[in-house]
């Protein structure tokens, strides 16, 4: 079941496009914003609202890498693993993250505090290495900085 607020936001997006299902990506985003991820149950609810089959919606949902079809932690770490960050040593940061959080890419800490994901170029190449946690971008990373940064996220 979608909440009233979710439905309101989705309907707003639907009103902006000439065909209803064109708003389906927005709908996924909205629900993910509220719930953190898109469960099968959410998927069915959105699909019904968008007048699509679960298959049609999941086909779209699974194409994009930032729609989460599995539960994720409260905070999502997206570590840039692209070329400039590679040159500037993102792998060291990754190693450090692994020792701090005991998770690899694609994993979530058992307390659901963090999910760690690799992400292509974050567009901060002049300040590599870089990562994002939720809405925030951190640049010119060092292991020391990282220790402090993580403390901000509970």
């Amino acid at each position, binding site marked *: 079941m979608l909440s009233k607020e979710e439905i309101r936001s989705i309907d707003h997006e639907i009103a902006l496009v000439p*065909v209803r299902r064109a708003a389906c*990506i927005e709908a996924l985003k909205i629900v993910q914003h509220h719930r953190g991820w898109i469960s099968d149950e959410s998927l069915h609810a959105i699909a019904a609202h968008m007048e699509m089959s679960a298959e049609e919606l999941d086909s779209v949902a699974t194409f994009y890498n930032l729609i989460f079809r599995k539960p994720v932690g409260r905070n999502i770490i997206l570590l840039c693993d692209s*070329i400039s960050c590679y040159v500037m040593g993102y792998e060291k940061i990754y190693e450090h993250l692994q020792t701090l959080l005991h998770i690899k890419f694609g994993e979530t800490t058992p307390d659901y505090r963090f999910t760690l994901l690799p992400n292509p170029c974050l567009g901060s190449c002049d300040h590599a290495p870089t990562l994002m946690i939720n809405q*925030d971008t951190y640049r010119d990373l060092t292991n020391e900085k990282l220790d402090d940064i993580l403390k901000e996220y509970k």
Partner: protein
Amino acid sequence: MERPLTQHINFNRTSLNLKDYVSVGGYQAVHKALKSMAPQDVTKMVQEADLKGRGGAGFNTGMKWSFVPMNEVGQIKYLIANADEMEPGTFKDRMLLEGNPHQLIEGMIVSAFAIQANISYVFLRWAYKKAAWLIEHAIAEAYAAGYLGKNILGSRFNLEMHLHTGIGRYMCGEETALLNALEGKRATPRAKPPFPQVSGLFGKPTIVNNVETLSNIPHIINNGPDWFKALSLTSDAGTKLYGISGKVNKPGLWELPMGTTIRELIEEHAGGMKKGFKFRGALPGGASTDFLVEEHLDVKMDYKSVSAAGSRLGTGTMIILDDHTCPVGFVHNLEHFFAQESCGWCTPCREGLPWTERILLSIENGEGRMEDLDLLEMHTHHLGPGNTFCALAPGAMEPLQSGLKYFREDFEKHINEKKCPWR
């Protein structure tokens, strides 16, 4: 030296709001174009200015607009700013989006007017959170000031503008895939023809332009084609946003006359290589361009010269390979990216890229065989332009083919020594 795109951008402070922007001459071009020019004249002016698309392909922007059918009254058309910037090593549009969103909006209004589009989108990548907030805000300001909406400045021209943020995938930057993404579909590219100019978003005529391309438009309208051409040092008009990342002293982004040399960029603007690091090569315009090496340091960074040197200007943001970085690892990292970002539609890209990635990994790990180099070569031949459905895979082959050419001994060393010499 003029820096029309960035002269008012100050990185250490907040971006220009509407008031700031107007106070430095913003929205003049909207006044001029909407009130005193015919749409076709705007197109003509842009065509004459020889503004080439800054999204990577370098196609004449005015020419692209001229393919949009202009005779049907009431026809729905779309203008889209491509702000998906996901090419690794590229961070130029971000500066324009965060530093001066109104400049982009103004460019979009004029461009939409030129093709008589009444609906426009900024297709922004998800990671640019700050830009999203600023653009949202700027669009609201522009509506409030009457630059967007119905009957703009009494010209009877209407324009809606929406911000759409993506949810990942490099493919979304490819213009036809972007259209699919906007339509709520999988971002796989579409066959051309029909070209988007004729049948694009929801089957309607659509122009997709890069953020930097569009940000240039107000200045061309205000100052004319000759001025724009005179900005450049070479035959390709205008200024260009150049960037450098890697082991240099001052990685960054600069607006400079088109045709600035690589050497000048590295040595003067980026402050030279970091101490203890030597320049071995560079991708001049993002991940999907061919390596240039030491012998190319004096190549001018414009479309023609970089092509002549065997690479592409691409996005003009350079990634430097230094002597402490393994070239095999470097290329492996790139191919990993491209393999991940393949949409899965056509065979060569979907199956070929992961194979190259796999080979590069094994070479990097000291498990490669000499035949593997032939397999890599084979891929660079077969994944060329025209062989795949869109330009992603051919782009992916550029660093690989030139990497094999310039750094072959490094590849061979990995194979012979059965280990990575840099580890």
